[in-house]
C-alpha cells in the first residue's frame, strides 16, 4: 500500500494540491489473495479506484474443455476454495441438466446438507477476515477457524479431504452418510448457535464495529440490480432475491427458511445479513437432518460411468444451471458436442461480478474504508480470476 509511483498536479480552487496514486497489492495482507487496486487519492479520500485482476488466472475453463466431464469436478473445488461443496453442486446440476439425469432423493438431501455446511464455513471465515481488515488482528479469525475445523473434520471423514472435497458426482454423491456421521453433523448444528451468540455478543453491538461499518460503502438497490450483483451483497441492499427460493433447485422448496434482507446496504448490513443467513442455514440443516430419507445415493444410469468416466457422453446441447453459493449466483454453462469433452465450459463466478461494483462503493470514502468494503464484498481470487 505504500508504493507511491506517480503524483499529478492539479489546481483546486486556487489551492495547489495533488492527487496521489497508490497501488495496493498484489502482495498485501488485506487484499484477500493476489488482488490489486490502483487507487487515486485526494488527501485521504478515494477519487478513483481500478481493480486489476488476473494474478491467479489458472485456465480453469481451458483445462476443463480438454478433459472428461467427471475430471473437471475436482477443479471446481479449487474455484472458490472456501466452499468446494457448493461449487461441486453447481457443476453437477448443470451436467445433470445437460444429460437429463435424475438424482435420488437421499442424495439430494445430502447435497443440501453439504451446501449449507459450506455456507456456514464461508460466512464465519468472511466475518473473521472482515474484522481482520478492521484492525482486530487475527483474534476473530481464531474464533472462526475453531468452528471451521469442526465442520472440516466432517468433510474429511466423508470425502477424505479437508478442503478439496470432490464429493459430488453426476447423479448423486460419492459415499453414503453413516448414522454416526449424521449424528456428528447434528452435534455441530446444535452447538453452532452457541458459538454464533458468543460471536454476536462480541461484535454486533460493538461500538467500534458500528462506527467503522455503518454508512460505509452504501450500495443502492438500483445499482446492485443493474450491475447484476448477487448473494449477500444484494440482499444487504434490500433486494429479495435468493436462488434457493427463486429457482428452487434440488430439494430446497421443501424447507422452511427466510431470506434475510438489509435495510441500507452498508458494510454493517452485509455483516449482519451473513450472521442471519447462518441462522437460516442452521434451520435448513435441522430440517434436512430430521427428514433425510433412506435409499439410493446414486442414479442407476450413472453407476457404470463411475469406473469409466471417459465414456460419459452427454447428448449434443447446452445447459446452464445455477446455485446460491455463499458468495452469490454461481452458474455453470456447459455445451456438449457429443464427445467426452465439453465444447464450451463457462463459469459465472459471483465474486468476479460482485467485484465490478467496487469502485462505485469506494468513491468518496477513506482509504481505510476501501479495505473493509473489499472485505465485505467477500472475494476469493481463485474464483475471480479462475
Amino acid at each position, binding site marked *: 500500500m505504500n508504493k507511491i509511483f506517480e503524483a499529478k498536479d492539479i489546481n483546486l480552487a486556487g489551492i495547489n494540491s495533488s492527487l496521489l496514486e497508490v497501488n495496493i497489492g498484489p502482495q498485501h495482507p488485506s487484499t484477500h*489473495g493476489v488482488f490489486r487496486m490502483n487507487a487515486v487519492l485526494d488527501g485521504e479520500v478515494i477519487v478513483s479506484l481500478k481493480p486489476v485482476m*488476473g494474478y491467479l488466472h489458472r485456465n480453469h475453463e481451458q483445462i476443463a474443455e*480438454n478433459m472428461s466431464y467427471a475430471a473437471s469436478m475436482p477443479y471446481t473445488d479449487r474455484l472458490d*476454495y472456501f466452499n468446494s461443496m457448493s461449487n461441486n453442486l453447481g457443476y453437477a446440476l448443470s451436467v445433470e441438466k445437460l444429460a437429463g439425469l435424475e438424482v435420488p432423493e437421499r442424495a439430494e438431501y445430502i447435497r443440501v446438507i453439504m451446501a449449507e455446511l459450506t455456507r456456514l464455513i464461508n460466512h464465519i471465515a468472511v466475518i473473521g477476515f472482515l474484522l481482520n481488515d478492521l484492525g482486530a488482528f487475527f483474534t476473530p479469525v481464531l474464533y472462526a*477457524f*475453531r468452528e471451521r475445523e469442526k465442520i472440516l473434520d466432517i468433510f474429511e471423514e466423508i470425502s477424505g479431504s479437508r*478442503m478439496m472435497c470432490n464429493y459430488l458426482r453426476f447423479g448423486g454423491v460419492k459415499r453414503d452418510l453413516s448414522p454416526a456421521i449424521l449424528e456428528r453433523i447434528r452435534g455441530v448444528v446444535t452447538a453452532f448457535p452457541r458459538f454464533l451468540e458468543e460471536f454476536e455478543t462480541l461484535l454486533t453491538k460493538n461500538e467500534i464495529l458500528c462506527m467503522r461499518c455503518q454508512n460505509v460503502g452504501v450500495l443502492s438497490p438500483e445499482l446492485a440490480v443493474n450491475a447484476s450483483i448477487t448473494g449477500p451483497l444484494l440482499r444487504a441492499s434490500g433486494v429479495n432475491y435468493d436462488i434457493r427460493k427463486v429457482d428452487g433447485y434440488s430439494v430446497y422448496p421443501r424447507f422452511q427458511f427466510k431470506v434475510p434482507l438489509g435495510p441500507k446496504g452498508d458494510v454493517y448490513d452485509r455483516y449482519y445479513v451473513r450472521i442471519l443467513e447462518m441462522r437460516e442455514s442452521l434451520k435448513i440443516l435441522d430440517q434436512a437432518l430430521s427428514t433425510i430419507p433412506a435409499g439410493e445415493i446414486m442414479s442407476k444410469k450413472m453407476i457404470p460411468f463411475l469406473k469409466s468416466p471417459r465414456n460419459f457422453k452427454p447428448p449434443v446441447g447446452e445447459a446452464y444451471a445455477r446455485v446460491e453459493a455463499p458468495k452469490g449466483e454461481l452458474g455453470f454453462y456447459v455445451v456438449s458436442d457429443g464427445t467426452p469433452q465439453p465444447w464450451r465450459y463457462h463459469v459465472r463466478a459471483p465474486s468476479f461480478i460482485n467485484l465490478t461494483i467496487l469502485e462505485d462503493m469506494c468513491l468518496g470514502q477513506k482509504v481505510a474504508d476501501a479495505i473493509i468494503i473489499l472485505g465485505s464484498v467477500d472475494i476469493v481470487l481463485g474464483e475471480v480470476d479462475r
Partner: protein
Amino acid sequence: MALAPNTSQVDDGLKNELAKKGIVVTTMNQLYNWGRRSSIWPMQFGLACCAIEMIATACARYDIARFGAELFRPSPRQADLMIVAGTVTKKMAPQVVRLYNQMAEPKYVITMGACSIAGGPFIDGYNVLRGIDRYIPVDVHLPGCPPRPEALLYGLMELQKKIDGQQIETAEWYQQGLKREYPIPEFGPHGLIPKFNPEVWQPRENDLRKERYGQPIMIGKKSKAPNLDVVAVAAAPRPAAPAPTPPPTPGIA
C-alpha cells in the same frame, strides 16, 4: 541433516560438571542456529488455496507458534521465510521473485502445494508457471493439494533441521558483500523471459512426466461447433397437435 560440528575443545566430563553448576558450554554456531531456528518469521503472503491451510496452521488447533514461527510479517523486509502457498501464474511470478529479492538474508523458501512445486493440477494451463524453483532457490518442497497443516509443520521442522546444519564460517549469506538477488523475469509475448534462471534450475534431459505417465492423451483440436439450433428445435415443445377429436357421440347428430 547433521548438526553443525561441535568444535569446542572442552571435554564432555567437564561440560557435564559445568552444566550442574548452571554453566552451558556450547559453540557459537549452535547458539546462533538455536536462536535462528526458534524465531523464523514467515511472510504473510498467500497466493491461492494453500494459503487457507497456511492460515489454519497459524490458528489455534495447529498453532505454528509452538515452533516460533507465528509472527507473519506482511513486509518482506522483516521476514525470514517465504511460504509460496499456491499456484504461481506467469503474471504473478515476477512479483514473487521481486519479493524474494527484497527479503533480508538469511532467507528461506518453502514451496507449499503441488502448484508451486511443479504446476500441480494446473500444469497444462497456458498461464501457469511450472514450479517457482525455476527462478528462486527452494529449501523445502511440500507436496499435497493442499498439504495438511501437519504437513506444513513438518516442512517447517525440516527447515529447522537445515538451519541447524549451517555454519557461520561457511554459510554463503554470512560472507561479506553478498547480494543474493535473482533476475526478475518479464512478461513477453510467449510467456516469461527468460524461461528459467539457469543459476538455480536446469531442465532435465529426459522428460520424467512422459517416462512415468506415458504420452499425454491428446484430444486433438476440435474445430466444429455443435449445431445447437437443431437440438433446440428438437427439444422445443412441438406446436400443440390438434386435439384429438372426440369420437362422435352416437345418438346426437
